[in-house]
Every structure is written in C-alpha cells, then in structure tokens.
C-alpha cells in the first residue's frame, strides 16, 4: 500500500477520534462516539498491518492477542469503583510502548552511516524520556490506588533536590542524543533514569492530589505518543497523541484550579511534611471530643428533614455504597425530602470520579450539584451527609493558614443545620490531614463501614 493511500486512511481514523471526543459533550451520545473511535482504531490497525507487509505476521498476531486479551479481560472484570487504577494502568502501558518504540528505532539507526537528523534523534530521546516517566509514574499510581503500597505521601529529606537532579541528568543525556551521538547505552540511561524519576515523583503524592497526577500522566503519555509520531514520521500518531496531550493538560489545569494550587506545587509540594506534623498533633488528641450517634437517631433526623444533601468522597467508592446511597435517597424522596448530591471536582481519585459512581447507581443528573451550586444550597439544608469524604469538606482549607490544604475551595457543609459524617474510624484520611469539621458542635459522627451504615439508615427510615 502506498504511503499516500495509508495516510489518507489514517486521516479517516483521526476524524473518528475527533468525533469520539466531540460526542463526549453530552451523555446521550457519548457511547456512540466511543464506538466510532474504536472503529477508527480498527481501521488504522488493519492498514498498519498491511503496511508491514506481513513479514512478521505471527509475531504481530501473538503480541496483539496477548496484550488485547489482557486488556479486554482486565477491563471487563474491573469493578466500577476500581476505575482510577485501571485508567492509570492502561495509561502506563501506552507510555511504556512509546518508550520501547524509541529503543527499537534508536537501535535501528545507530549502525547506519552518517548521523541521524536532529529532529529524529530529538524525538527518540524525548519519547523515550516522557514515555518512561509516564509508565513508571502510572504504575506507582496504580499500586497506590490498588493499595499495594501506602497511599500516604512517602517523603525523605532532600527529595525535591534528588528528583530535580535526576530529571536534569536525564534531560542532559537526552540533549547528547539529540546532537547525534549514536551510543545506544545513552538512551537506556535516559529511559532508566526517567523511569526512576517517574517512581520518585509519584511516591510522595497522595490523597486529594491523585486526580491531578492521573490527568498529568495522561497528558504525558499523549505527548510521548505524539513525539513518537515524529520519529516514525507518522501523522496519525502525532495528531492522536497531541489530542490526548491537550486533553490531559486541560484536565490537569482544571483540577489544579479546583484545588487552588499550581501544578508545580502539587508535584513538588510540601503535602508530606506538614501532614506528618498535623497527624502527630491529631494523635495527641487535643482534648476535643466528637459526638458519636446511632444509625436510628440519624434515620429520624433524615426522615423529618426538608432538605438533605449527600457529599460523596473516596470512602463511598471503597465501600461500594453508591447503590445503597441511592436507595436511601429514593426512600427519603418518597417521604417528601428534597435530595441533592454535592460533588467536589477533586472528590475521589480521578477527575469526575464521583459522577461515574453515581451514574452507575442511576442517580438523576439534576440532583448532582457542582461545588458552587452546592455551596449556595447548604445554608438551607437541614442535614448534610458526608459519605467517605474528608479533605474536600475540611474547614481548615478556609481558616487555617498552616494547613497543607489551605486555600483549596471546599464544600461548606458546616453551613447546614446538621452535618452527619459517615466514617470508618477517627483515623485521618488518605492524605492524613486532621479535620476540625468532626469536632464542630453541629457535627455528629456515625462510625462504621459506609455501606453498613447506609443500610442501617435505610432500615431505620423504613421502620419509621
């Protein structure tokens, strides 16, 4: 197949990808868009297969069967609540592939007489570098979200310096490659160093910062793929990769804005250190007491309220309580209670995480309130029910300048008449920050697994 023909077909694929993104502007036809994109992908794979001339068809087939099989099974089996880590995993393997392509390309052009052109060698160095950061970073994010390693920030003295030095060294080696030095171990060093950097840069990031990191890694992989397009002189990779790069960047900026923090602050921020002190203070107790109540008391409170707002957080995902919350909400609605859900932009572990969970439970869209709308409603809310959310309702973000989350816009649940916090225990959350909301006289705590607690509330409301 001539390059012109294949490039034209690739253009068709590009159009399907753009349509896929375009269709995401409304839930009604978003799924159709995704299917169109998938069809475009199939077309591109077929054309590429023909381009390779069939010399290594069995290796291609085996590789695609293995990878595709794994992807299909993993994606089918994963629970909706485990979506963030699945997205991180698939994001990582894409970055890994871009990195490996750079290795093969470099290996191929190294023995050739004459220096490779500047743009090709730059592209090789860059896609190797970014792809490796994305791969390693995503794997750490995956491990954190899957709770294979501790979710709390992991810090040590001089961390920022070590990270910056490592990144600088990788970049310097990359520049050497870009100038046309054809030594293969250089690229290995870049990729190895970048992978180490990826690990080190995600390790200290925890809790509420996870959505920012996930979108940032998404942008990285897109960028690595786009740069890979330059090294293979392939328009399809350039455009598709850059679309993803733009999307990831935009989401990262939105998340940063929602937390009122710059991206640099998230990546190199002092979340860890301050947190350790705050946690130590919390362990000391401080002489404050929390009010613990029984599920039956809360059930009465809810059933006789005029307006109840649910504030979901990551705890809802962990307990997989979304259907039960919906059931409770329906029950309350049938008793004439006005229901809404207040969604903080960074609640959960990825952008829009809570929306997906509540969509799974078929919560009607008009009941989902974004932060600004929700904050307008809290003053006339009788009961705000916080289900597994912590940092996004922490008043320290408004009042306490020494808090690591100071300045982050939050849901002002303490404007409501009463706040009910469903929580497993008094341990500080994923990010490990103390929350004065729990000691507020308006607040009552309902301890226990979120799912169990909600089910008890359902039973309690039914028996009234």
């Amino acid at each position: 197949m001539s390059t012109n023909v294949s490039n034209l077909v690739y253009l068709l694929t590009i159009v399907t990808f753009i349509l896929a993104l375009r269709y995401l502007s409304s839930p009604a036809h978003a799924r159709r868009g995704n299917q169109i994109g998938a069809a475009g992908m199939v077309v591109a794979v077929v054309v590429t297969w023909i381009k390779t001339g069939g010399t290594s068809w069995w290796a291609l087939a085996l590789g695609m069967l293995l990878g595709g099989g794994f992807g299909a099974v993993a994606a089918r089996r994963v629970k909706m609540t485990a979506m963030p880590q699945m997205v991180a995993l698939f994001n990582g393997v894409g970055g890994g592939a871009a990195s490996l392509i750079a290795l093969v390309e470099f290996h191929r052009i190294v023995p050739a007489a004459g220096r490779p052109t500047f743009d090709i060698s730059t592209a090789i160095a860059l896609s190797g570098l970014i792809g490796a950061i994305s791969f390693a970073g995503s794997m750490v994010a995956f491990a954190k979200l899957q709770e294979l390693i501790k979710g709390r920030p992991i810090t040590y003295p001089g961390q920022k310096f070590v990270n910056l030095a490592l990144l600088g060294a990788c970049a310097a080696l990359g520049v050497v490659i870009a100038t046309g030095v054809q030594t293969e171990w250089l690229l290995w060093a870049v990729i190895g160093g970048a992978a180490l950097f990826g690990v080190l840069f995600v390790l200290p990031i925890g809790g509420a910062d996870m959505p920012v990191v996930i979108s940032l890694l998404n942008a990285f992989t897109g960028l690595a793929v786009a740069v890979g397009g330059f090294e293979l002189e392939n328009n399809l990779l350039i455009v598709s990769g850059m679309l993803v790069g733009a999307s990831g960047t935009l989401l990262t900026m939105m998340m940063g804005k929602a937390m009122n923090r710059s991206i640099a602050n998230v990546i190199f921020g002092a979340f860890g250190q301050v947190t350790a002190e705050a946690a130590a203070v919390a362990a000391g107790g401080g002489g404050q007491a929390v009010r613990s109540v029984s599920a039956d008391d809360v059930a009465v409170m809810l059933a006789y309220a005029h307006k109840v707002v649910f504030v979901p957080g990551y705890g809802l995902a962990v307990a997989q309580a979304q259907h039960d919350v919906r059931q409770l909400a329906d029950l309350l609605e049938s008793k004439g209670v006005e229901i809404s859900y207040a969604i903080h932009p960074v609640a959960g572990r990825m952008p829009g995480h809570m929306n997906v969970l509540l969509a799974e439970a078929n919560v009607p869209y008009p009941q989902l309130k974004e932060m600004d709308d929700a904050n307008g409603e809290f003053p006339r809310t009788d009961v705000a029910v916080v289900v597994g959310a912590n940092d996004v309702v922490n008043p320290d973000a408004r009042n306490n300048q020494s808090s690591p989350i100071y300045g982050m816009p939050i849901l002002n649940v303490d404007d409501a008449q009463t706040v009910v916090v469903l929580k497993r225990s008094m341990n500080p959350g994923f990010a490990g920050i103390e929350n004065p909301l729990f000691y507020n006289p308006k607040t009552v705590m309902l301890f226990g697994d979120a799912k169990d607690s909600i089910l008890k509330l359902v039973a309690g409301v039914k028996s009234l």
Partner: protein
Amino acid sequence: MSHNMLLVFEVTILVLAIFLGFEVISKVPTLLHTPLMSGTNAIHGIVVCGAMLVLGLGHKGPFAWVIGFLAVVLGSANVVGGFVVTDRMLEMFKKREPAKAVDASQNSKGDA
C-alpha cells in the same frame, strides 16, 4: 518531499492538533470527565500502530524482535482495555430518564 518539508508539515499539524484538542475538550461537561480521561487513554493506544511498524520492519535483529514484540503487547493492552473500560462507563451514563425508585434496588444486585 524533502525531509525538512515533511518536518514543517508535521509541526504544523501538531500545533493545529493542540488547538483542536483544547477546543473540543473544553466542551466536555464535568459530568463526563472520567470517561474523557479513559477515552483519551484509549486514543493514545494508537501507539500500537507505531509498535506494529517497528516490529514489522524487515532485517531486524533479536533486539528489535523482543522489544518490538513487547511494545505491541503493551500497545494492544492500551487500546483494547481503554476502549472497553470507556464503553462500560458510558453505558451507565446512557440510560437516564427520570429514574424510578425500582431500578435502584435492581441495580444493587448487579455487578456492584
């Protein structure tokens, strides 16, 4: 086409793609941000085509065989996993009329 001309073309479409990306994605509502991430995740699975090209090269040594093969495996996992996960998410967003109390109890028995 000379190499430099090709490069200029490539940079041109790269820059256009950046603007197009920002334009299209800024229209996606907050509600769909997770499917957006997952959908773009699937799109960068296009890297599998690059992987296929390097594995499909003629005259390759064992190194290109092994690394190229690995790249194809990773790339295919990215594509298939990305599209399937996105489809599963969007499936949930689709069926949404003013919901009835009944389907909440039905759903809780589902794959929760």
